[in-house]
């Protein structure tokens, strides 16, 4: 406090050195600022949860927004919502950052004469826009993403009322080819919904449904459900057809590394085989062209026998489902490929059973790439004078070759409603910032029967306005009030929901009706589609595969720090772009990881560091979509102090502007020439080897062993009793069985423990995002990641096979990263979440000089931040490497802008020089303890849900009390697949991993 001046201070120091210490650290004045009127539902200290809807992708997952004192602090899944059922992916969770982002526009802005943005008032801004529209109404266009049925109808009404040229709905990943294929085959354009829950064979023809499918959380849950080892036949088999070992392929039981774009050929050939086996009418198939297995094999670059086997397996399966190609596989022949897969489904009887051709929700805006290209043409011809861009960043996400950037120069007046800066907004003449989704009203209808609501969970932090209100007010400023609905968007939303119980819908997150199963239409044989190779443009030895980054999506995630910091689930690269080439190519060209390659196509050239891997075809190079932004605190290098410099490269700059048969967007369009530049860039690679060196990490067991029909050939036993026999082949030393429940105080009713089912873990990293956001974990940026200073408390380790103990390639010894163990056509990938094991005999504890880490009575390995002096001995002694050290005072610099408003107040923000780690979300344990203590009972099973467990889309993580024999985690601990990581070290881990099950695809 300020009363103490220096002179007094020195006097006091003289008087008492001991007392001076207390005064020397006198705290700054802190204000207590209570409400003027405390809302009835808010009790300070108790979270209030609102139901809303995620807007990070079109899946439309339900949210539970956890707020504290009026601030959203975390996004969780809405358990009642049929799409995600309580889970949420990494992208959805990171969406909270948009509200507090340092790049947000504080209010409407106009581009001044000097090119700088200057603020202006809303009235002024809207009348300026009104004036520009009135000058040339037919030259006004609205371009943007799907904004939900009600807001979408307002946009449409605005376009009609003003006599604007049109509205173009734009979504770079809109499944146009799939919709077109249903129209061609069944006469009705629909986007089929694929249900994997009860399948016994899923063949993924390149959809990458776990990476960025139509609904990754839903599909991950369904796959996990179908894959349960207790199911008949030991769970579903997953076959992936595609050129690279994507995250989905990594989870497959079999990977058929077909050439990119040949998925349709393989599907068609397999369908012929399946029909031959099962018997059935193949006339519909013939309309797409008769493709024999041998023919397809030659054109797809795989064995004919493999396709035969696939066809027989499909014929033998009881409930097979085939998924059509995803973004990376959309070529000029995307419609035909999708049609081939749909016909395969039809031939197998899956259409109407697990493939639902439901009618699309009436309010769903259909994105059209063809219209977007027409708009570019119109812009180029000078016919567009006002372009209003909302909920999309077309300048980034349209292919550079489409000429959108040049065309934008010819538009007199560009308006952006982006709430934070992006490439398009940086070129806008007027910015009318929208609320962020957490501040907005709105609705979404991802499919029939699922009407989902958005409600504001925080008062808008800045002077922003909802898109619909902006348009309505502009229309009214033009004197068109009579032709526009009256009232604000909020009242329009209530009107749109007048047929439902609005309050109830707000409480539940929407209105969910069980879906009637679709009928099984008969395909017409007259479709004029030809399944064929993709016909790539340009010259070069390689096909260029541009695939969506599973975290950055179409680039919209690039400005959210957690999505940059969490490494790509497959390559483990963070914060950067990389080009994947096969190990053979790398050897031929003399490439090592990080060598900069020039990748050149007919449309452009980029320089990007290389990452050789085994899991990609030799004739393919692949670059992820999502990086290469020149704007944004995190998306570009602006946060690193270099505004305008791009972070990584955008592969979209390499793609020619090519469409599929129906005018939908194609991504698989180019051949690439690859040359070595001689440069080197160290990649922020978070895992430098996928060799597990036969250690007890990321275990896998054959199904036959799990089912008790056979044994592995090893010598060591699983820890849960000798009666199971030696199922693990690879432990170095004999293992002593131990009782984990002995590792807490005998008076304590608890020993907290976790189970992680590697058979369900897909590696999607939702748990990592949950941990970051729950526990206020700082992000360290690209340089920090290069220096391996990442702070994540949980990471997904990715191992390929059992690995080898010695370095086989002596010349490679010491060089990091080590070559990958991936082999073309083999999967055997084990994703193993690694977090603090809360060891009963923790190696970290005895070496800590100030006893800042200790074993608590409930079995947790406590980490007391205020006691830590930063010796880092604990981290040195931790065999799991799960302790993280604050090298910098991230608490001061890590949450720029308003990010500090979203810190979880229940978790201490750690300072510099302090070690930190997972403590099983002890804040959640202590929160659950309150209710239990009030009622005088022990904490029940399922009352404590850790953040990672809550987020996991496939429910791979279980948590509970090991001392409660009835708890789910205790029961799982007895599973035959159970093992402890690095068991031979006798750390008495509290986490039981359940080994991945390897299944053979039978035919």
């Amino acid at each position, binding site marked *: 406090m300020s009363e103490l001046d220096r002179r007094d201070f020195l006097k006091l120091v003289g008087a008492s050195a001991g007392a001076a210490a207390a005064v020397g650290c006198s705290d700054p004045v802190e*204000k207590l600022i*209570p409400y003027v009127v405390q809302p009835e539902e808010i009790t300070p200290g108790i979270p209030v949860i609102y139901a809303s809807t995620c807007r990070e992708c079109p899946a439309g997952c339900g949210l539970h927004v956890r707020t504290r004192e009026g601030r959203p602090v975390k996004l969780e899944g809405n358990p009642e919502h049929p799409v995600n059922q309580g889970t949420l992916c990494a992208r959805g969770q990171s969406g909270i950052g948009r509200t507090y982002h340092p790049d947000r526009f504080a209010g409407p802005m106009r581009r001044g004469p000097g090119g700088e943005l200057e603020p202006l008032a809303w009235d002024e801004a809207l009348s300026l826009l009104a004036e520009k529209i009135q000058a040339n109404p037919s030259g006004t266009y609205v371009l943007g993403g799907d904004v939900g049925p009600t807001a979408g109808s307002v946009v449409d009404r605005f376009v009609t009322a003003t006599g604007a040229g049109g509205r173009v709905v734009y979504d770079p990943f809109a499944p146009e080819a799939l919709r077109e294929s249903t129209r061609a085959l069944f006469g009705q354009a629909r986007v089929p919904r694929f249900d994997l829950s009860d399948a016994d064979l899923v063949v993924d023809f390149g959809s990458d449904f776990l990476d960025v499918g139509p609904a990754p959380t839903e599909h991950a849950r369904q796959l996990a459900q179908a894959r349960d080892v207790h199911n008949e036949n030991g769970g579903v088999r997953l076959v992936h057809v595609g050129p690279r070992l994507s995250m989905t392929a990594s989870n497959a039981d079999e990977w058929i590394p077909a050439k990119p774009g040949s998925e349709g050929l393989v599907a068609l050939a397999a369908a012929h085989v399946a029909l031959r086996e099962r018997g059935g009418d193949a006339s519909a198939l013939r309309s797409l062209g008769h493709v024999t297995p041998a023919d397809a094999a030659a054109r797809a670059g795989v064995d004919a026998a493999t396709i035969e086997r696939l066809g027989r397996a499909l014929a033998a399966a009881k409930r097979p489902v085939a998924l059509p190609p995803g973004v990376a596989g959309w070529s000029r022949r995307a419609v035909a490929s999708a049609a081939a897969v749909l016909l395969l489904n039809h031939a197998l009887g899956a259409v109407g059973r697990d493939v639902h051709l439901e009618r699309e929700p009436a309010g769903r805006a259909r994105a059209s790439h063809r219209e977007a290209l027409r708009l570019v043409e119109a812009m180029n011809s000078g016919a567009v004078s006002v372009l209003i861009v909302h909920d999309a960043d077309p300048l980034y996400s349209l292919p550079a070759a489409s000429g959108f950037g040049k065309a934008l120069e010819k538009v007199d007046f560009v308006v952006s409603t982006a709430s934070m800066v992006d490439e398009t907004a940086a070129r806008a003449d007027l910015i009318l910032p929208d609320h962020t989704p957490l501040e907005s009203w709105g609705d979404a209808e991802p499919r029939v029967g699922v009407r989902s609501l958005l409600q504001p969970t925080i008062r808008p932090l800045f002077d922003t306005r909802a898109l619909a209100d902006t348009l309505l007010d502009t229309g009214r400023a033009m004197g068109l009030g009579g032709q526009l609905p009256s009232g604000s968007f909020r009242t329009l939303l209530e009107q749109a929901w007048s047929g439902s119980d609005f309050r109830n819908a707000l409480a539940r997150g929407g209105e969910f009706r069980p879906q009637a199963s679709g009928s099984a239409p008969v395909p017409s044989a007259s479709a004029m589609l030809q399944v064929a190779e993709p016909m790539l443009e340009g010259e070069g030895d390689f096909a260029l595969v541009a695939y969506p980054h599973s975290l950055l999506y179409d680039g919209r995630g690039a400005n959210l720090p957690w999505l940059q910091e969490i490494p790509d689930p497959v390559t483990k690269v963070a914060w950067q772009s990389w080009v994947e080439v096969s190990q053979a190519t790398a050897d031929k060209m003399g490439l090592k990881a990080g060598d900069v390659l020039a990748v050149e196509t007919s449309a452009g050239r980029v320089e990007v560091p290389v990452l050789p891997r085994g899991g990609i075809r030799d004739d393919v190079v692949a670059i992820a979509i999502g990086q290469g932004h020149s704007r944004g605190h995190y998306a570009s290098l602006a946060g690193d102090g270099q505004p305008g410099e791009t972070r990584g490269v955008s592969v979209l700059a390499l793609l020619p502007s090519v469409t599929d048969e129906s005018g939908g967007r194609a991504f698989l369009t180019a051949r690439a020439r690859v040359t070595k530049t001689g440069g080197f860039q160290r990649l922020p690679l978070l895992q430098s080897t996928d060799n597990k060196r036969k250690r007890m990490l990321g275990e896998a067991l054959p199904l036959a062993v799990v089912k008790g029909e056979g044994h592995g050939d090893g010598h060591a036993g699983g820890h849960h009793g000798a009666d199971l026999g030696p199922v693990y082949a690879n432990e170095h030393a004999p293992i002593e069985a131990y009782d984990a429940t002995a590792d807490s105080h005998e008076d304590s009713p608890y020993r907290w423990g976790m189970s992680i089912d590697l058979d369900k873990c897909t590696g999607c990293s939702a748990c990592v995002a949950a941990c970051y956001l729950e526990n206020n974990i700082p992000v360290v940026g690209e340089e920090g990641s290069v220096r391996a200073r990442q702070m994540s408390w949980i990471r997904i380790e990715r191992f390929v096979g059992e690995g080898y103990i010695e370095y086989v390639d002596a010349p490679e010894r010491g060089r990091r990263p080590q070559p990958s163990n991936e082999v073309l056509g083999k999967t055997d990938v084990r994703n193993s979440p690694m977090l603090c094991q809360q060891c009963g005999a923790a190696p970290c504890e005895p070496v800590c000089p100030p006893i800042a880490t200790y074993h608590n*009575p409930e079995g947790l390995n406590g980490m007391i931040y205020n006691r830590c002096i930063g010796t880092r001995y604990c981290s040195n002694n931790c065999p799991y490497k799960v302790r993280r050290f604050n090298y910098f005072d991230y608490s001061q610099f890590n949450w720029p802008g308003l990010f500090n408003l979203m810190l979880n107040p229940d978790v201490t923000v750690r300072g510099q020089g302090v070690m930190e780690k997972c403590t099983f979300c002890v804040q959640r344990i202590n929160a659950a303890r309150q209710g239990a203590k009030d009622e005088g009972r022990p904490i029940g099973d399922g009352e404590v849900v850790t953040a990672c467990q809550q987020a996991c889309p496939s429910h791979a993580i279980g948590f509970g009390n090991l001392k409660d024999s009835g708890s789910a985690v205790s029961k799982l601990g007895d599973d035959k697949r159970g093992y402890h990581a690095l068991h031979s070290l006798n750390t008495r881990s509290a986490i039981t991993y359940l080994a991945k099950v390897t299944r053979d695809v039978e035919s």
Partner: protein
Amino acid sequence: MVGASIALPEAGSAESAEAEHPNGDGPALVAGSICEAHELRALAAERPGTRIEIPPQYNKPYPSRSACRSHELAWDDSAPGPRQPIPFSHKHHAGEYEIPCQYCHSGTDRSQAAGVPSVETCMGCHGQLALDYDQEFEGIRILKEHWGHSYVNDNGTWKLQPRDESKAKPIQWVQVHRLPEHVQFRHNRHVKRGLDCNQCHGNLRQEAPVKVEDLDKLYLVPDTLWWKYGLPTQKLEMGWCIKCHRENEASQDCLTCHY
């Protein structure tokens, strides 16, 4: 302790009058406010013969003399503790009127945070009190200004203007009892256990216990110059927490409070 002498509002005149006319020969001492009237009556009772004059508009029981004194003392800068934006006295509210702590600090039994009452809570009572309070106390005027009212001073009379909700603003209290950020303290557990608030917010262990309800101005060590005043209340230190936890067989596990 401190605060035995009170500086009345415009008390200079009364005091000088008292000095000039100790025996009450001269003109009567005239009260200029209700609070002054209380003091003059007390003076007259103490020194019989003192002539006092209390105009009828100041001859009222409320605001009480203790309210007047508390209002003064809560803003006594010579007393320990930070100056608050409003001279709120716990002694007056919790002590004399015996308003239970949780009447204003509601949610303390449910939530980890004790919570500070909203302006609305204050106005729940103060909105119904006579305007004499506004006239006498600057603190009340400040409170009502936070509620959205304003005042016009008409020749020394404060006239309350209608409320303008948009002008309402929260009161920015200065935090007195502050735990470091690495401590997670749960009020509800301690309240449910039946602890007296004074065990932490006062000091019941010394010979002359300090209780919040006895304090016009809240303070806590480490206060900047706490040794001037001895050790009246608790210092929120871990040894002190642990002592109580040990005596009461509460959890002494680090992770109970540090995470």
